[in-house]
């Protein structure tokens, strides 16, 4: 490694350099929020609503409990506005009037130990008058039970592309076949391994420092300014044990609670969620109900028109749901060119815990429907599923439903490369290599399924231009510091940024570090979400590094400075005055109209093809994974090891979404299986052998050509698995998750004639 990256011929970028956070995490030196205990710290706990809906009547402290060292805070203790500022101001910090979902925070307690705090919270009874809740998203719109606005619709989007429904009518008149299908997906939990946790510490100036597990420090700044009524606060990210979107917006709630208690007690407050609490109270992936009608040319298989209806369940509060819906509608047709389409999408409110950001952000839901629908078309009209995809895939110059013209489209290449890789012989069945010698004698059927994704990288529409994210680079003696609010949540940001800067400056990466993600120091580079960090912020960081070189050259008074390298410039600096430069996101002139949803929806798109081989145990309904091949366009693999890690981890999370991750709600809407033993995510041992091909169609706007890759791997493993089950057994599954029970049911349904081609309309 020594010397690597110090010459242009030997850069870090493009190689599997070592993660900056690895040693501290492996040795246990890394400090997560629960590892830190400020002097005088009290512990917080949350009192939550026991009902889905009710009128809050007050709180009752158990008179038999010893309250001497316990402090209780309610909505009345919120110093500023009782609101978690996000899209709309509908969600309170603490409920004060109507209870809108089970586990909604109602009060807070602080006590000298965690056990005391938890015990105290249990002895605060929430008094309420029960009201009738609304759970069914299909009945939510315009229901007389009101949750949001006057129609229970958080947001509604409509897109018309080409001639819209007229295009459908024309196609039908010209002999196209209409194929209609409905698809549904359930909740999914992010299941970061470190639960939510935050410390709020009073500062000497009367302000607060917030320290904890998070993706987006500036979201918390924005939310807490309103909660506190002033801006004397700074937010510092602790080492964070995973997020997957679950630590995008929810940490603002935890931070607000810790802050309220810290102000009331004047002491540092540590508030760490229990696992069972975290699973019941925090956001999940939105359930969705999706209906697709397409007009397909019976001779060529070309999709001529589409009519899509999406219904997403947002839960009790709006959170980021409108943005999720926006990504959903923009991805709803999958990576296929359709000349005429009408798309309708609604995000409705129900009395369930709010749903929110999760890797993919609306795309995995619609991509499941889009891909399953294509398989339905193939089945109904007698096309080969792969050939049908090949016919309809986007190609260079095609236009998306928002009117964006596509270039450098990697769709066919990812398809061909995945198919070629899938030709290799399958590794031995995991059944045979299972511990204990292998399950004997199942009636197992083998099958293969394929699905293709496209994923818009970065924010939707004019999001980046509106944000105009910033990053600083500074000199610290012999070292270089990068200052951003872009957090490392396990995906490798703290390793990627230094490598980018090291290559620009031509220095050893050991000399480049990320400054602590403390909003007192770092500018707002935007949230760590939307597959934007390496691609968008990475580019700003790259520019900041160039600006640093420029600044050094500008202050150098000696001849030849304009060609001198970084170290020479550093050595010959006229003074050792601090030097810090800032770069800002530069808009490439994208055009986007948020009113009409026309224009460049995303700066660029990633492309991915997944091929899954399964064995379906037709006695038990279990799906056994044999292999997952993916070919994914990453623009440029900044670090191929980290890139493959993202793609494989994302794919495994997608397999969990496919077959095992079922969230079961009780009759109050509370997650019943809120434990690691019964919310079943795949472990490393459950991962099938994976073959991961990095395809590189560079994006001129990303650093070294990189595109965002954080989310795309989660998009289509699930429909590929469904297709593989169908290939193996003929059973058709159009709902997630495909648990053994569901597979057995579908195997039985296969015997009934409902799925004959004639009935596909």
């Amino acid at each position: 490694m020594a010397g690597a990256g110090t010459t242009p011929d030997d850069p870090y970028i493009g190689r599997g350099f070592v993660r900056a956070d690895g040693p501290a995490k492996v040795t246990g030196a890394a400090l997560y929020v629960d590892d830190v205990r400020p002097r005088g710290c009290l512990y917080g706990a949350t009192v939550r609503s026991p009902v889905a809906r009710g009128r809050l009547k007050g709180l009752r402290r158990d008179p038999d409990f010893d309250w001497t060292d316990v402090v209780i805070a309610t909505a009345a203790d919120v110093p500023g506005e009782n609101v978690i500022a996000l899209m709309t101001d509908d969600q309170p910090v603490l409920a004060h009037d109507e209870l809108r979902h089970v586990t909604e925070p109602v009060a807070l307690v602080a006590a000298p130990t965690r056990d005391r705090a938890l015990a105290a919270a249990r002895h605060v009874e929430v008094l309420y008058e029960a009201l009738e809740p609304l759970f069914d998203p299909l009945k939510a719109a315009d229901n007389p039970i009101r949750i949001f606005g006057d129609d229970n619709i958080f947001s509604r989007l409509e897109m018309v592309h080409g001639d819209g429904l007229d295009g459908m009518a024309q196609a039908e008149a010209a002999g196209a076949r209409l194929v209609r299908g409905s698809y549904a997906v359930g909740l999914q939990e992010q299941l970061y391994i470190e639960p939510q946790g935050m410390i709020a510490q009073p500062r000497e100036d009367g302000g607060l420092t917030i320290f904890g597990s998070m993706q987006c420090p500036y979201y918390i700044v924005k939310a807490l300014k309103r909660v506190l009524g002033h801006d004397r606060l700074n937010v510092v990210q602790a080492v964070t044990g995973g997020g997957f979107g679950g630590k995008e917006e929810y940490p603002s709630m935890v931070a607000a609670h810790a802050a309220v208690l810290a102000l009331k007690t004047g002491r540092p407050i540590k508030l760490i969620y229990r696992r069972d609490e975290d699973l019941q109270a925090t956001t999940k992936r939105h359930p969705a109900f999706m209906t697709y009608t397409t007009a397909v040319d019976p001779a060529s298989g070309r999709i001529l028109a589409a009519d899509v209806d999406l219904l997403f369940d947002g839960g009790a509060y709006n959170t980021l749901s409108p943005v999720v819906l926006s990504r959903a509608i923009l991805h709803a047709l999958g990576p296929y060119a359709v000349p005429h389409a009408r798309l309708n999408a609604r995000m409705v409110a129900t009395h369930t815990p709010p749903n929110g950001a999760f890797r993919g952000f609306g795309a995995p839901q619609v991509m499941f429907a889009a891909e399953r629908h294509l398989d339905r078309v193939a089945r109904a009209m007698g096309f080969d599923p792969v050939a049908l995809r090949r016919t309809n895939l986007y190609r260079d110059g095609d236009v998306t439903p928002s009117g964006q013209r596509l270039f450098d489209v990697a769709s066919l290449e990812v398809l061909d490369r995945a198919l070629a890789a899938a030709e290799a012989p399958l590794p031995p069945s995991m059944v045979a290599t299972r511990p204990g010698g292998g399950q004997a004698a199942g009636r197992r059927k083998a099958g293969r399924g394929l699905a293709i994704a496209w994923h818009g990288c970065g924010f939707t529409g004019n999001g980046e231009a509106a944000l105009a994210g910033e990053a600083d680079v500074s000199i610290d003696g012999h070292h270089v510091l990068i200052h951003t609010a872009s957090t490392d949540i396990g995906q490798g940001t703290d390793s990627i940024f230094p490598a980018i800067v090291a290559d620009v400056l031509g220095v050893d990466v050991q000399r480049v570090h990320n400054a602590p993600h403390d909003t007192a120091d770092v500018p707002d580079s935007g949230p760590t979400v939307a597959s934007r960090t390496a691609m968008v912020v990475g580019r700003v960081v790259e520019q900041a590094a160039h600006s640093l070189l420029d600044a050094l050259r500008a202050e150098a008074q000696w001849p030849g400075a304009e060609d001198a390298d970084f170290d020479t410039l550093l050595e010959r600096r006229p003074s050792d005055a601090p030097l810090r430069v800032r770069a800002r996101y530069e808009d490439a002139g994208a055009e986007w109209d948020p009113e009409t949803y026309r224009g460049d929806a995303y700066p660029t798109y990633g492309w991915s093809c997944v091929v899954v081989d399964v064995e379906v145990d037709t006695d038990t309904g279990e799906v056994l994974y044999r292999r997952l091949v993916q070919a994914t366009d990453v623009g440029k693999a900044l670090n191929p090891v980290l890139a493959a890690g993202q793609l494989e981890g994302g794919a495994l999370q997608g397999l969990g979404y496919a077959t095992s991750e079922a969230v079961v709600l009780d009759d109050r809407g509370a997650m019943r299986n809120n434990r690691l033993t019964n919310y079943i995510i795949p472990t490393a041992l459950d991962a099938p052998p994976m073959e991961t091909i990095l395809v590189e169609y560079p994006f001129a706007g990303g650093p070294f050509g990189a595109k965002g890759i954080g989310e795309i791997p989660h998009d289509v493993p699930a429909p590929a698995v469904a297709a593989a089950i169908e290939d193996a057994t003929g059973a058709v599954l159009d709902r997630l998750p495909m648990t053994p029970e569901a597979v057995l049911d579908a195997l039985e349904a296969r015997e009934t004639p409902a799925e004959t081609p004639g009935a596909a309309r």
Partner: protein
Amino acid sequence: MLRIADTFVVERPRTVAAALALLDAHGDKARLVAGGTDILVNIKHGLHAPEVLVDLKAIDGLRVVDLEGDVFELGALVAIHDLARHPGVQAALPSLARAAGLIAGPQLRRMGTLGGNICLDTRCVYINQTHFWRDALGYCIKKDGTVCHVTKVGKKCVAAASNDTAPVLWTLGASVRLASPRGVRELALEDFYVNDGEKNTVLAPDEILTHVRVPRPAPTRRMAYQKLRVRDSIDYPMLNLALAFDLDGGVVSNLDVVVSAVAARPRRVKRLPEGPLSAALIDEAAALAHKQVRPLTNINGDVAWRREMVPVLLRRAFAEALGEEAAA
């Protein structure tokens, strides 16, 4: 994250006698720990609050695997991993090796022991929960309460025996050797377990399980073990089934099937057929098992599905015992 209470001390005796003396001295304030993979979790969940943990791992002589005589002897401290990988066990008691290999995950198999597995506490969705959770729902018969959330009406705890070695050892005719201040006693495994989820063994508080004894199987003995679980990587059984029979000249006799992860005690299927090996015989056994075994909502997994899986596991066990691979 759940923390372990730091209210106990750990004693590490070097002999069984010393361990017994510690149990005697501390009475019901003491608990035994071997690999700790069960009891530490239960302490975290507030199911026990011992003041002394008597750790058995420093005791010599309890890791023996003796397959020489007419009765095999397996020490209580043999690690689950070693049991699964032992060539002699794999050859002579293949169903036991297989069951061991299907327990938990790799780390847990290295820590967990045979004795700990046999003495594993029963499991239930209403008991293997944090104290906070159980407090919120209301306690149950097994700990601190008076009701059963599974049966609603019953007065008896129905938490499920969930150990993988128990049903196999049962079909192998195993017995356990128990040491106490009163001396050593040996009990057939069948008599060791009782049908009470609160405590499903007759192990006295001052007793230590030292060895498992398994009669050498006759050359005609066939055996198999099948397990249903969500993830092959780690999960407890949602259902398990051990089977053994003699096959001599194509005739099946002494057919024995024990099913577990259903009730507090493993359940032996009754009135099983004998006679020439045939599809009809297997069908009959499968039908009997289906009829006699009724899973409850005490553990994870859809009850109807688990019940339908009883005959499936039985057929698979037959195929496994006969060395057949499934025809696709």
